[in-house]
């Protein structure tokens, strides 16, 4: 799991690993992350979630080795 931009300041780390039960969704993973890093709770609804290089919905089912990214709204330009 990777955190980007000021999410990294809130978690204190750029990445971490998480053991998940088979069939865990991206949304469930996000909930687990919010439990572990309560400072991210304020950004809950604006958090963007990607698996690998693609944005995915909360019901996306994760597989072994998936790299999940959580980050705030993007600001390119």
């Amino acid at each position, binding site marked *: 799991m990777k955190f*980007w931009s000021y999410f990294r300041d809130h978690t204190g780390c750029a990445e971490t690993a998480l053991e998940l039960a088979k069939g865990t969704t991206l949304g469930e993973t996000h909930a687990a992350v919010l439990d572990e890093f309560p400072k991210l709770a304020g950004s809950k609804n604006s958090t963007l979630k990607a698996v690998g290089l693609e944005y995915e919905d909360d019901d996306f089912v994760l597989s072994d080795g998936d790299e999940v990214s959580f980050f705030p709204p993007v600001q390119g330009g």
Partner: protein
Amino acid sequence: MKTELTISTGAIDEAALAKCREMGKGMGAVICFSGVVREIEGDAPITAIDYEAHEQMARHQFALIFDAVEKSWPVESVRLVHRLGVVPVNEPSLWVEVTAPHRAEAFDACQFVIDEMKQKVPIWKKPIPA
């Protein structure tokens, strides 16, 4: 459609980019957009913006945007440069060029690329206060 994407910490040299443009003989319109760092971010004066990217994902998301351009307009080429790291006030952080047969599609495609980028490409900015 030709595409050229540069994501790097190097300064954007618009004159050099203009010089190395290659355009087919059926093309009638070129739009270049430069997004420049302003001295005010929110309400506070700044000296620069520090840009960070999830670079691999950014490249992939730009590629998806370019694919969508190709499907929507008869555009010949899109070149895009996004600078990362510390970009001082008054220097460009973004440069987008679209070449197309006619003006309307060049304007539309250029604005589409920027609009989509601002929704989807994982780049973030941290203002550096004055």
